[in-house]
């Protein structure tokens, strides 16, 4: 039995944040009833990556990834009947995960206060860009704009070229994935409390706040007055030559912060003459921008002729912290990922066999698992509503 088996979750999500939160719960056996609009379903069904082969409407790899183990029920929430059915479903579930804005929830009769009054044992988790208190001025938001409202955007990359724009992070959905993690954490914590209190509660997750909490080592010092606050794009940076460098076959990342790292580099390079211009402890005691620039130049020239995996292994043996910058192909071939079975094959009725990333935690008693592919649109409407009509618990 996985940890959340028997927990029933109603998912009112049309974006990555809510759908990924639902996935994090369904990985542990929670039963997810995903409500979708009858005219086409969740918008994520139309987001890429879409299978290049075929012309079926159910070809989104994104939807397939985010919605494993879930049930799809179509319901027209613009109609009174639909809302009434939704409310009947709420009598039967433990948790609601929503990534809709407050006005949407109100239209569906789900103002948080009303939900608390009518379904006191329900855990209602709302994920919104800036939290339920958000002002109309911020109503239009995407992962890009939320990410840049959090400090991560402005301070990425480290050591920036100031003439070029700050960056959005990796891929499309970092803000959503991060927010979903905090949402799932709070939902299960609330379920723990409910084991004894029998009470539900409202959880209000701000995607912006989630991202800012991830900077706590820095912002915690800044807000306490222990670290300078500024409009500098380098305000979060650490000094030093740590960076990504190109190799003959890709890229490596080098971390250097201690005299031992400098010494290891010397050994690896056969103590070239240019290193003699640097005191042995310069990384700790004399890390000037000029020295960093000289070192970066030499590292770049040297690494351009090396191969990422071989040179990283050689560096690691000497105590120099260097790792390959992996891409999606590297990960599927990585012996560690294979050993830990990070990737799992899932058979999807339209996409066929598809290799999915799974979870970063191995649990001895309640392992996460994918037991069914993402549902086709409305696949479970009839059975779910029939069970509801039949009064099945």
């Amino acid at each position, binding site marked *: 039995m996985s940890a959340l088996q028997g927990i029933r979750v109603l998912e009112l999500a049309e974006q990555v944040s809510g759908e990924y939160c639902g996935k994090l719960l369904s990985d542990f056996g929670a039963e997810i009833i995903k409500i979708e609009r009858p005219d086409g379903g969740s918008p994520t069904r139309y987001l890429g990556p879409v299978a290049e082969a075929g012309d079926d409407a159910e070809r989104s790899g994104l939807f397939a990834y985010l919605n494993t183990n879930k049930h799809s029920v179509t319901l027209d929430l613009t109609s009174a009947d639909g809302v009434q059915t939704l409310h009947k479903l709420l009598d039967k579930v433990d948790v609601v995960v929503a990534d809709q804005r407050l006005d949407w929830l109100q239209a569906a009769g789900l103002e948080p206060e009303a939900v608390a009054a009518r379904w006191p044992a329900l855990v209602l988790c709302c994920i919104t860009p800036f939290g339920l208190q958000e002002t109309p001025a911020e109503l239009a938001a995407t992962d890009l*704009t*939320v990410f840049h409202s959090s400090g991560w955007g402005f301070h990425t990359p480290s050591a920036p070229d100031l003439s070029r724009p700050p960056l959005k992070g990796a891929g499309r959905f970092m803000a959503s994935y991060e927010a979903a993690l905090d949402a799932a954490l709070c939902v299960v914590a609330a379920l723990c409390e409910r084991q004894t209190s029998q009470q539900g509660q409202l959880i209000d997750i701000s995607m912006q706040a989630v991202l800012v909490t991830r900077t706590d080592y820095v912002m915690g010092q800044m807000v*306490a007055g222990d670290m300078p606050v500024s409009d500098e794009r380098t305000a979060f940076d650490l000094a030093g030559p740590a960076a990504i460098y190109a190799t003959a076959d890709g890229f490596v990342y080098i971390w250097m912060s201690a005299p031992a790292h400098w010494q290891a580099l010397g050994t690896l390079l056969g103590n070239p003459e240019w290193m003699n211009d640097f005191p042995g402890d310069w990384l700790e005691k004399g890390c000037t921008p000029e020295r960093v620039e000289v070192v970066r130049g030499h590292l770049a020239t040297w690494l351009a002729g090396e191969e990422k995996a071989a040179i990283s292994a050689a560096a690691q043996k000497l105590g120099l912290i260097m790792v390959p910058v992996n891409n999606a192909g590297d990960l599927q071939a990585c012996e560690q990922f294979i050993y830990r079975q990070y990737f799992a094959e899932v058979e999807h009725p339209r996409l066929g066999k598809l290799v999915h990333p799974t979870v970063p935690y191995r649990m*001895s008693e309640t392992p996460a698992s994918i037991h069914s592919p993402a549902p086709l649109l409305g696949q479970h409407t009839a059975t779910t509503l029939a069970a509801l009509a039949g009064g099945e618990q």
Partner: protein
Amino acid sequence: MSAIKKRGGPLEGVRVVELTKVWAGPYTGKLLSYLGAEVIRVESLGSMDVTRTYGVEDINNAPGWKAVNPQKLSVQINMKSEEGLSRLKDLLATADVLVENLRPGAMERLGLGYEAVKAAKPDIIYVSMGMYGAEGPLAYQTGYAPCFAALGGLSALVGYEGEAPTGMNVRYADSTFGTAAAYAAVVALFHRGRTGVGQFIDVSAVETMSSMIGDALINYSLNGVVEQCNGNRRAEMAPHGVYPCAGGDWVAIAAHSEPAWQALAGLLGLAGDGRFATLADRKANEAELDKLLGEWSCSQEVTGLVEQLQAAGVAAAKSENSLDLIADGNLWAREFYPNVTDAQAGSRMTVGPSWKMTRMAEITDGAPALGEHNAYVYGEILGLSQDEQDELVNKGVCR
């Protein structure tokens, strides 16, 4: 009556013992503490956390330490002594969760591997955090946060289009890793609440990073596409970028829908321009579009520009610097920076939780001084008399 006051919150009554270092493991403990758990950091002078000593004279007044450890307790235990290890096991016998992110093999060398701790506390939830996780052919390797992001495939997706990746800001990865571990721990607590059974949890930092780019990994599975860094672009939207404003500020703008593009085109004077009529047109001419947008935005003051764009229904936000974050109205409306009090420096602001909940845990205390809660742990939890506690000091187990 306990020396430790009740704070409420969903995890009230849960005791967490932390054997952690630097940021990721401590962040896990912080999240659990913010949810109401009692979190005790086990510390020793012989193996001090670098965040207590990095660039500071006073180990009890270290800014980095204080930033990540509010609302925790600290007990000093010399783990190089048999007596110390024995008391630590006594403490673990009272704990619900153990979080550790020491070097691979360190817990086993201390005699604190899962089986040993389980013998002391059969239903313990043992959370082990490692760069590559606790098991596997590369589990012996260690690294810092940017290494996690590089190895996990995330760094390769951050950078300017057609160039070498830059990776995220150097601070990224530890706190995300810590959150994944906290989630797994709470799932295990729920399971234990139902069944009485604890478990071993093995969390990988590298895999946590891969989970932040799951859709890109699916693209490789589905179509064999190895995604590359692409600046600020996104296939489904154009424009989708970050543009200069007056005074060195930057604004993030996304035309997230057709009406949003129409509104933006009106503001830019590009309504009806055939180069940008459809999304496909705009993607084909995106460099030109970005150039025109930048020329339009660069002389404008960012706050007014964001207001103007939002009023027109276009997703836009200032790219916030650290000054902006401290003044941010939404964060203040959520009481995001609570005041906490510590024994050394008095009251200070800190970074609160991301969530609001109906029944929140109170957050009132700053980070602890080393061994600040020795008397609570040795006296109240372990039931040692004052004489026995004095004896521990004499034996060098604590101060």
